[in-house]
């Protein structure tokens, strides 16, 4: 029972959604939107599980004084402070208070400061680490070990040299043109082949899930 009902639910809703796609009727669209709301709302409720997991893991670390447990205090403190600022704030009269149903918390100056001066700088800096990793990855991996690796290397080099002004105008012109060609022709072919393959793989996997052949998502292999 514990396993049959979920498989049955997947089947019913999966098949319904497949056929819904072919019916643009108002009623069918309404059901589609409503079911999308289900997914969304289930997702929000699940957030509580996520936050609980984060608190639980951090608390465990602190309780057992595991290695680096001090940093978990930082995580927990940041989590609670951010949540607190997000539900408190000043309304238009300047009164401070808890606001659950209205969005005063989102304009709380401390909430915005945490967002602008902690979250944003760390996020963008993490992102900019890519400048370094792309360099080290290129150095480490671009070796002409065999034909396959050489092709990767040569086409990357041509595209990287496309705006180099040092070897004369004619060189730059042809590099530019070759780079554009590489991006529009072989890259396009590669993308299209992969996309068609992925499409079939996706539909195949989804069909297996809907028909109950594939139950890996419930741990039943």
């Amino acid at each position: 029972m514990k396993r049959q009902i979920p498989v049955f639910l997947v089947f019913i809703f999966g098949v319904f959604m497949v056929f819904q796609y072919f019916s643009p009727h108002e009623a069918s669209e309404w059901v589609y939107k409503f079911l999308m709301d289900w997914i969304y709302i289930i997702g929000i409720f699940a957030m509580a599980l996520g936050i609980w997991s984060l608190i639980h893991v951090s608390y465990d670390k602190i309780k057992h004084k595991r290695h680096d447990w001090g940093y978990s205090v930082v995580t927990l403190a940041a989590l609670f402070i951010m949540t607190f600022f997000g539900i408190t704030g000043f309304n238009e009269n300047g009164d401070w208070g808890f606001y659950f149903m209205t969005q005063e918390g989102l304009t709380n100056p401390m909430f915005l400061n945490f967002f602008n001066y902690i979250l944003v700088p760390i996020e963008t800096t993490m992102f900019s680490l890519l400048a370094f990793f792309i360099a080290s990855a290129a150095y480490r991996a671009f070796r002409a070990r065999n034909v396959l690796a050489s092709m990767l290397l040569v086409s990357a080099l041509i595209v990287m040299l496309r705006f180099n002004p040092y070897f004369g105008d004619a060189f730059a012109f042809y590099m530019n043109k070759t780079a554009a060609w590489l991006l529009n022709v072989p890259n396009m072919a590669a993308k299209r082949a992969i996309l068609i393959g992925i499409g079939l793989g996706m539909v195949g996997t989804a069909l297996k899930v809907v028909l109950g052949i594939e139950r890996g998502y419930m741990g039943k292999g």
Partner: protein
Amino acid sequence: MRYIFVIFSLVLLTFSAGLAQVDTLGVDSILLNIAPPSPISNLTVYDKANDHGHALILEWTPSPDDGAGMNTVMLYEIFRSESPDSPFVNVGSVPLGNSRYDNIGILEKESRDYIPDNTDLYYRVDAVTINPEVRASSEVFGPVRSYSNWFHRGRVPVLLAVLIFGGLMMYFVTVARKGAELYVRPLAGISAVDDAIGRATEMGRPILYIFGLGTADMISTIASFTILSRVAKQVAEYQTQLIVPCYDPIVMTVAQEVVKSSYLDAGHPDAYNDDMVFYITTNQFAYVAAVNGIMLRELPATNIYMGKFYAESLILAETGAVAGSIQIAGTDEVGQLPFFIIACDYTLIGEELYAASAYLGREPIMLGSLKAQDYAKAAVIILSILGIIAANFGLTAFTNIFKVLD
């Protein structure tokens, strides 16, 4: 994250809709001496096909003064009414040079832009000059009605494709179930998974399994769940440690369930605890920062990346390389494949990710679906060759069979 984006865009849209209610054209004294233009002709209005109703399409022959003649027409304004006698309401406008307007209604009944279904409607189009007072109205067209359609005719090719593909799959699955031998060629990335688990056991170091930024409603994540269930089963048998940091709470929930069942199947239910699969945060780079930390502190023997990855792919894979882990990746995000191919030891490209679950299980039923995918690919190849030949001989009727209308 997508939801938040959608919400933000909705807020922005409402905001800009508010801005849009500013009067655009004012009258100026210099404009008084414009002669009225000729009206448009041949106005026809019909129901929009394959839709949820509440929409009609207008077509007309432009005014002779549009871009030629007196060259005074600036825009066309469209008017609608529920009877030819009652006052007409302006429902929209298009700039000069257009001869078509899609009058798409809004579904909320209270809205000004609501178009009732199954009701007689009347339309009129005005050719308007730069002075809104100087205009020429067309004759009223009507009555016309809009309908909601139960079946989308433009999507027939998709329906056929799904049915044929589903049929192929059912056929091969039944064949496989009866015990026919199906050959699949070996994939390097797949056999690497088995070796990697063995290596982790020998070294006594954990295995890190990462879903990427996919949410549980993406098929790549669902495929990844299956791969995780196979990996977890082996991990449980070898008594190795498994770490699964998650980006999405539902993915975490499902992954906990998957790992738990796999440990149960492997006969080590007591070795499982919920903290092996844990949530970090739903923020791309904060998640990456934490996973990077895990990689350098736990020093996993193997990192397995399966699912949907975005810009973080290279940050993760490079940090993993620094930690000296064997890395196996698989994603269907085409833009990130180059980075995984460069930085990881093995990469499952696109469709191989979906095939991986079947490969790892080695169950004949699963291999049946791979066979169906191959036949579908063969069909795509043959049809596109036929299509190219047909298109160059002017047989567009053949290629149009495959055209999907939205």
